[in-house]
């Protein structure tokens, strides 16, 4: 669910029926005649009994122990370590890797059975597939930390002798064709609406991308890029940071970007990257999504992305392998307190059903901010936000299909999006395979930010929704893109991410709170998570892990 730009649905949010009436049947019917029309009307997916699957998700039961640390059994095991990392997501693993590079072997606690955070992945007979974050845009060539990691992972195979630009492993660059959009009954290449888009709208879209081109080049008086990744490297100039005070939607209105096609695309992009609509995120964040993409490579462009069948599961596995020190999984840290020599953490081992007391000199809390806040309940001087951070809930569904009936236009691509859809489309996990049999079974991952209601309401609703209720909704999304696809679906696994990703709502990125939350406490307690960037993308989580590690090392 992290990064990859495109559009969404808040304009009208048409139901599937309306959508079909408006585009599928309307246009396709006119162009292709009654055959198509009747086919689209055939009862779609009436029989779903053949579909297997179930509801998966982060371990809420264990996770919710955090809320009632008083009910833990008395500690029956004690551990001590110099450095402790709580949380095995991208930030925690990046910190662990960086510590290993400096000769440290921290102890890492992970709530789930496997590390990876929201870059989790799965595997079945057909393919490995992502459960969350699934790609990394070709990074800015100046992001040396990240490139170092990619070099060590074999993603970068070397650097060009003359330009010095990284050479990417071709197997890891997203193969062509990368993206397509179902618009007006036709699959077009790319996600920016083009087919059948009126000239006035095209002009606005062109003007928007011209603006983005200028913002990519823009620099502040401090010599920094207006928009950079990591975002902390962006210019501090007021002219840019002012943009964080208003919503992206308000900014677009003000600048005369009113084309429904453009607005759909931008809304889709915000939902795709932030799990929130253009009306919910700040203008700075909305523009950053486009203007900070400055990747350069010897054999790729800024528009290219790196992708793997298992999504960013590939990257977190590399991070894990490049670190040192014990990883304890299925362990949830429940309580933290300071001692004269450092910190003491009470953690619950879900597998052994016992409480462990862990003493450490320093602890890195590589967990979402709201989890850190609970852990710090008894700690003096801990900073808490005035309002809870905006954490968007997501639904991710992995569908194993024996085939997919294709519509007219561009063939199956890596990323496949429907204009006006409720979800942000699906990614074909088999796309990066090198197999000859294109028509064989595949796994597709449907991404769905639940952005219609405020996050707490949407989260509660999502937790209460059963598999039997999710299944028809997921299939309706699929049928919207591929009428008649339901009989091809063998398996649907659904995962609800209650706190899928942080959204950069106005004022959060450049207000005082974000920096304050990430401040270490007394050189003992440190913080690393993409929450402290305000954007849930791999580069930011990686950066936060390194930043916190450097603070820890400096404190020694």
């Amino acid at each position: 669910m992290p990064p990859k730009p495109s559009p969404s649905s808040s304009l009208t949010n048409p139901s599937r029926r309306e959508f079909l009436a408006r585009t599928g049947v309307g246009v396709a019917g006119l162009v292709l005649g009654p055959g198509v029309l009747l086919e689209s009307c055939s009862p779609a997916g009436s029989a779903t009994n053949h579909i297997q699957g179930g509801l998966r998700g982060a371990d809420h039961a264990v996770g919710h122990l955090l809320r009632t640390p008083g009910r833990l059994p008395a500690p029956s095991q004690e551990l001590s370590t110099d450095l402790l990392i709580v949380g095995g997501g991208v930030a925690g693993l990046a910190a662990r890797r960086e510590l290993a590079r400096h000769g440290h072997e921290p102890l890492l606690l992970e709530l789930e059975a496997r590390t990876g955070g929201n870059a989790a992945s799965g595997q079945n007979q057909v393919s490995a597939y992502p459960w969350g974050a699934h790609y990394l845009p070709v990074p800015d060539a100046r992001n040396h930390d990240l490139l170092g990691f990619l070099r060590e992972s074999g993603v970068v195979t070397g650097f060009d002798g003359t330009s010095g630009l990284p050479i990417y492993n071709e197997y890891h660059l997203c193969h062509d064709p990368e993206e397509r959009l179902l618009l007006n009954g036709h699959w077009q290449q790319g996600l920016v609406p083009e087919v059948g888009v009126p000239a006035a709208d095209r002009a606005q879209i062109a003007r928007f991308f011209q603006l983005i081109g200028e913002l990519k080049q823009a620099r502040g008086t401090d010599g920094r890029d207006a928009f950079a990744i990591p975002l902390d490297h962006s210019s501090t100039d007021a002219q840019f940071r002012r943009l964080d005070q208003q919503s992206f939607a308000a900014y677009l209105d003000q600048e005369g970007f009113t084309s429904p096609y453009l607005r759909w695309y931008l809304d889709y992009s915000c939902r795709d990257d932030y799990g929130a609509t253009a009306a919910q995120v700040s203008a700075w964040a909305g523009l950053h999504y486009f203007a900070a993409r400055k990747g350069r490579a010897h054999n790729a462009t800024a528009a290219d992305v790196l992708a793997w069948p298992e999504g960013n599961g590939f990257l977190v596995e590399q991070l894990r392998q490049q670190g040192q020190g014990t990883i304890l999984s299925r362990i949830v840290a429940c309580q933290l307190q300071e001692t004269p020599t450092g910190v003491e953490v009470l953690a619950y081992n879900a597998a052994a059903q016992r409480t462990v007391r862990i003493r450490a000199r320093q602890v890195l809390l590589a967990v979402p901010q709201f989890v850190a806040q609970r852990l710090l309940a008894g700690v003096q001087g801990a900073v808490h936000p005035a309002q809870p951070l905006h954490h968007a809930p997501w639904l991710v569904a992995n569908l194993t299909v024996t085939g997919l009936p294709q519509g007219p236009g561009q063939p199956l691509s890596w990323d496949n999006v429907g204009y006006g859809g409720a979800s942000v489309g699906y990614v074909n996990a088999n796309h990066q395979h090198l197999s000859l049999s294109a028509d064989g079974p595949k796994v597709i991952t449907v991404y769905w930010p639940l952005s219609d209601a405020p996050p707490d309401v949407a989260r509660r609703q999502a937790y209460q929704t059963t598999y039997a209720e999710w299944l028809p909704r997921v299939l309706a999304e699929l049928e919207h893109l591929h009428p008649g696809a339901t009989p091809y679906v063998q398996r649907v696994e659904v995962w609800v991410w209650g706190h899928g990703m942080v959204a950069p709502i106005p004022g959060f990125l450049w207000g005082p709170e974000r920096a304050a939350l990430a401040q270490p406490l007394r050189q003992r307690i440190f913080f690393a998570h993409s929450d402290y960037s305000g954007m849930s993308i791999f580069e930011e989580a990686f950066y936060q892990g390194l930043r916190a590690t450097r603070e820890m090392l400096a404190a020694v």
Partner: protein
Amino acid sequence: MANAAAEAPAPASPGTPERARRGAARQEAQSVLLLGSVFVIATCGLIYELIAGTLASYLLGDSVTQFSTIIGAYLFSMGVGSWLSRYLGGPLLKWFIWLEILVGLVGGFSAPLLFVLFEYVASFRLILYALVGLTGILVGLEIPLLMRILENRFEFKDLVSKVFTVDYIGALLASLIFPLVLVPQLGLMRTSLLFGTLNVVVAAVALYRFPETRPYRRAFASLMGAALLALAVTFGYAGRIQRYTETLAFQDQVIYAKSTIYQRIVLTKNQRELRLFLNGNLQFSSQDEYRYHEALVHPAMQALPHARRVLVLGGGDGLAVRELLKYPQLQQIRLVDLDAGMTELFKQNQLLTSLNQRSFFNPKVQVINGDAYQWVRQDTTRYDCLIVDFPDPANYSIGKLYSAAFYQELHRLLAPGGKLVVQSTSPYVARQSFWCVAHTLQAAGFHTIPYHCYVPSFGEWGFVLAGENGHWRPNAGPLPRDLRYVTPVTIRQMLDFPPDMAEVPTDINQLNNQALVRYFEEDWGPYVH
């Protein structure tokens, strides 16, 4: 002649003038309805005839003969039907409803049935003409029957004039919309099903507008419901049936057709030659395949007198292997082809084993069924020669097998001094594609020698020979004795590219740009419409 249809609608009691007027108005409405039916059934009738004719010429070739005989048989059967109509007595309207349902089903399913049966029955012509005969008889019954139903409503001269006028207008409509609208928009299968549905609808309208049908309405209604449902469902699946029966691509008699999980294999035969099609694309004709396979294998092999090991990628027909076996110094020939269905066919079918000279049974030959890319990535053997004979890069999956990344993997497999040859589509038709393959090989670190030859059933065809260095001569070593096409002189000629096939600048085909698939679409696009 007792005529139930004419008697029943007559006013039951002469009663008031009001009732009489209503009775007359209903009579009038029913007559219009029946004439409307004539129009619809006339259109349907001609459509079925056109479908049969078109299908016969698609499937059997020789459109003049097919159209002529189908039209003759159809008209004759209509005559038989007209003659048989005299034997229909009793309630004529009931007969008419029966007939329309039958015509709807027989005519409606005629195209799907013929498409599906074509590959599975030995005597397809018999089925075709039986179906044409049956449809003709049923259609031939329609008009006489309707005329009898209408006979008491009009004077004879009006009746004849009205019925035939409407009949011929319907025929005109059918003959215009069939080629202009129906075939291009719906295709034969959906057209036939659609008009079958119209026949059933005519039956339904008659059933509900004539009071005398009351006693048997319910029974007929469920029958019609079932017929309409069957037609509609088949209509919905028409696309899939069509894909399943792509027979119209073939001119000659299909002697073998089988779908494996990867592709559809079809063999056709005429007096002169055997042809193999994969997914409708010609792979070879027995008439001239030796040109292709000799050109594929010998320019590389004659330069490798010390070659021991060869890897063939693709080429599941065993014909390249047949050529390789002409070099006794080879110790091992390994062939990797995706489709076991293909290699098995070329081990078992006698026509085919005589063509490949049972090459797969040679003890030097090892056949592996697997994905070439996966195989190559994990293979650690070094080969003296690599023969790359994949299908043309017509889709993104195959395009990956022509990428610089793939050629780098091949580079790793090549023994020092070894050679690699890639079938590279037509440099005449697909000039950009051909040179894109050559440039991509260069980008992967190979020295390339492009060449081409003329294969009558393919046209001008191209290959790229590649190696770590440019050490290669057209007469480096001895050629096998029994070659029919390749000689040192032909090899030399193959190296010359006239201006219309000369090198053009192209992008390199990479996994993340798939430049070749895009060129291939551009190049071949104009030829496949």
